[in-house]
């Protein structure tokens, strides 16, 4: 009742809209905009209300600033551009093996980053390129890793599914469906043990939402009050299986039972930001929470999946037209006159160039040295396993000293 009343009160009336228009002519205001208006708070209503399970959902009104909206646009456009470029690289056979693309889901990555710090931890599954970027990873590192070059974030030894950036609190990058959820609860355990006052966001998909280990970890997290937030990125298809075919109860935010949950429009970056802020406060006080992000992926499950055998092209294009996260932010920017359409187009052109440059740079990078086959197996090698290495090394004609094999080269 109170929530409904609040909504009524805040609905934008024509008068309030008028009051929000800038008083100065637009040419002058565009000059001023970059100086002082970047931090002016704007209140935006989320597309749909939040739905809570055993918790009071947060308000639909989200505080943002022009600077933040521009940041969202830039980030999401960069992520979109990167994923499309990865698609082309895969078809050109420069990327091998697996490639799971995130385009359509950018709002989740970007909204989450806006609500948390780099001290909070994020862990996700294999659709990790954009989360890595959001955590501070560079384009060159991303493309180099995808193409298996030494300059990649995992020195070319991980591949698409194994991006990590520990100094920014990004713990990967995991290929086994559902495994990242107990791992994320473990990260939260450590944060609580060390009394850091930070939280972990453990992301998983609707396909992983039925995994037993998830419920085991959730049980322990609730028992021990761990500051973990389970984020279900519900893109409605677990590989080729629709959610209604895989889960008896596809209301994933309710699946925690005794653990509170929140359903969020995952295509609205501001809604995601609001939900993550709410979740962080909740987790630090009351223990685990489940966030279900209602989102969508335009590509198939991976590059080997066309993505249209289990869903119609109309559905895909329909979502792209109505709910695309970048378009939503673009409309917000244009309606609040933070930037013009031409300026936004310029930004996209600039990003395209940035991505192309990064790809060119990554293509120049060398492959890992053959001796790196044996590095980083252990942090502290014992010397005794050299014998097996010797055999393999001799077969490869490797010239490096056996002493450097098997031990970590990084500090």
């Amino acid at each position, binding site marked *: 009742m109170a929530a409904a009343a609040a909504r009524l009160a805040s609905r934008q009336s024509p008068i309030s809209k008028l009051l929000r228009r800038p008083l100065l002519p637009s040419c002058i205001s565009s000059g001023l905009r970059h100086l002082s208006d970047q931090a002016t708070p704007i209140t935006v209503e989320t597309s749909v209300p939040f739905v809570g399970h055993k918790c009071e959902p947060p308000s639909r009104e989200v505080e943002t600033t022009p600077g933040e909206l521009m940041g969202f646009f830039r980030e999401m456009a960069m992520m979109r551009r990167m994923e499309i470029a990865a698609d082309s690289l895969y078809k050109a056979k420069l990327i091998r093996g697996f490639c799971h693309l995130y385009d359509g889901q950018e709002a989740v990555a970007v909204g989450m980053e806006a609500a948390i710090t780099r001290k909070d*931890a994020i*862990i996700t599954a294999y659709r990790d390129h954009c989360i890595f970027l959001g955590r501070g990873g560079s384009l060159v590192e991303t493309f180099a890793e995808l193409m298996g070059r030494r300059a990649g*974030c*995992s*020195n070319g*030894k*991980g591949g698409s599914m*194994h991006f*990590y*950036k*520990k100094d920014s609190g990004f*713990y*990967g*990058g995991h290929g*086994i469906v559902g*495994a990242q*959820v*107990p*791992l*994320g*609860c*473990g*990260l*939260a*355990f*450590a*944060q609580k*043990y*060390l009394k850091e006052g930070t939280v972990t966001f453990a992301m998983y998909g609707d396909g992983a939402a039925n995994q*037993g*280990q998830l*419920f*085991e*970890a959730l*049980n*322990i997290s609730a*028992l*021990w009050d761990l500051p973990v937030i389970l984020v279900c990125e519900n893109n409605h298809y677990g590989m080729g299986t629709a959610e209604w075919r895989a889960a008896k109860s596809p209301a994933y935010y309710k699946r925690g039972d005794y653990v509170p949950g929140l359903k969020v429009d995952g295509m609205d970056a501001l809604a995601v930001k609001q939900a993550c802020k709410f979740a962080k406060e909740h987790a630090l006080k009351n223990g685990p929470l489940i966030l279900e992000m209602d989102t969508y992926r335009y590509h198939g499950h991976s590059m080997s999946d066309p993505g249209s055998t289990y869903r119609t092209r109309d559905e895909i294009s329909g979502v792209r037209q109505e709910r695309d996260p970048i378009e939503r932010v673009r409309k917000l920017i244009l309606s609040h006159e933070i930037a013009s359409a031409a300026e936004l187009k310029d930004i996209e052109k600039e990003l395209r160039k940035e991505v192309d440059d990064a790809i060119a740079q990554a293509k120049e990078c060398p492959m890992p040295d053959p001796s790196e086959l044996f590095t*980083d*197996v*252990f*942090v*502290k*090698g*014992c*010397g*005794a*396993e*050299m*014998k097996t290495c*010797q*055999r393999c090394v001799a077969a490869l004609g490797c010239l490096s000293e*056996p*002493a450097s*094999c*098997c*031990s*970590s*080269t*990084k500090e």
Partner: protein
Amino acid sequence: MIGSDYSDPLNGRRQERKGRRLHFTQQKFPDSAGDTNRELADRHFLLPRGLPRIPPTPPPLLFCSSLCACCSASNAPPRRVQEKMWGLVRQASGSGAFNASMLGQSFRRVLPAVAGLQRGYSTAVKEVGVADDCCILGVAEYLVLLFIMGSFVLLQVSNECWGRGELVTILFLDALRKSHSLKMTVRDALNSALDEEMAADPKVFLMGEEVGEYQGAYKITKSLLEKFGPERVLDTPITEAGFTGIGVGAAYYGLRPVVEFMTFNFSMQAIDHIINSAAKMNYMSAGEIPVPIVFRGPNGAAAGVSSQHSQCYAAWYAHVPGLKVLSPYSSEDARGLLKAAIRDPDPVVFLENEILYGQSFPVSDEVLDSSFCLPIGKAKIEREGKDVTITAFSKMVGYALQAADVLSKEGISAEVINLRSLRPLDRETINASVRKTNRLVSVEEGFPQHGVGAEICASVVEESFEYLDAPVERVAGADVPMPYASNLERLAVPQVDNIVNAVKRACYRSVRMAAAA
């Protein structure tokens, strides 16, 4: 071959083959990277202050040699030796300072009970039950001791070398004391190791079923909850996949978890986290995310627990690059290897044995020291021999030693290697031993196919083929799920007789089965 009955156990094959065979001490193996471990290769443990250990010389020999040194009163030992001897004395006294009444102190050394109480070593000593477990000198030895000490007193007074005479006494008595050391059960060894490592590093914590309030399903973690509190000793629900994943995640962040599996049979529920989340992570992340975790628990057959609770997982885990796999036998192994595992920055699978938990083994003072640590990747030669090499790990080491005793009565001298570390496997020690003895029998409790013995055999065939005088024999558990009936269970697990027979087969001499029955 079976049936041949030559009096020479090696069938006259011990000829010199000039130009083809080097003595094993002359063998050069590729230099390995481990610096600290290299020093440790010759010893088997670290001494607190890096002092040399007295070799296990029989006391009478030491006495004679020191008596000779003493009698040549005009030839004082060189300064360096004197300093070393003082160091030994200080170490023996345990206090680092030379006390006035050395003779009195040295006399107390003879009684290990008092020695144990006096020293400020770890809590281990207090819990050992020193009075029950220590060995006391026999009467004859006691009288001899009194006589020697009496004669030394006279010698010292006459020689005016009070210091040297006392030193000799100390050395003699210390060697005597070392031959009658404290005993400790494997259970206490593990408990004390956990206790000390948790006290030393606040990042170490325990997690598992019944490790806290129940005091441990096998009482390994007894009293740790009281000491360290519920934040560091965590009872988990019966959800291996969940809590193992949580442990690995905590290790990603930088903590040092010790995850207990009630038995390793249940580790299969969590094996994805052990292998995919823990073992491979450092490699996949190119060193960015190390995983300093220990997975420990009893492995292999207990007694009468049937097939689902009796499997040995040594071969499973030792197969995986990125894991270190250790399997202790004695209390010394248990303490040293568990401490090494907890301190190690890599994921370690620590395979204990339920039957060994209650067994007592002698432990020296070095083992009881809180800084004691064994190197990972080094095997121990438990018993030297020259006719055949027997490799074993965990409980089978005890069986192999018993078999070696039986064999020595029949004129076969067996060298028993306690592997200690299954990954990395100490191929150097195994090969050096086989090059000396020319025959190999590997013993393990697990299933034979693709087992630890298969890897050892392959390693020896690849590297020491010319030195083998017989095919490698493997003694392993029967290739069946473990039965319950006690007679079948006994047949399914290797016994001492099986090892003896295998050795004899390797030596081309055996007794027909019917006659042996």
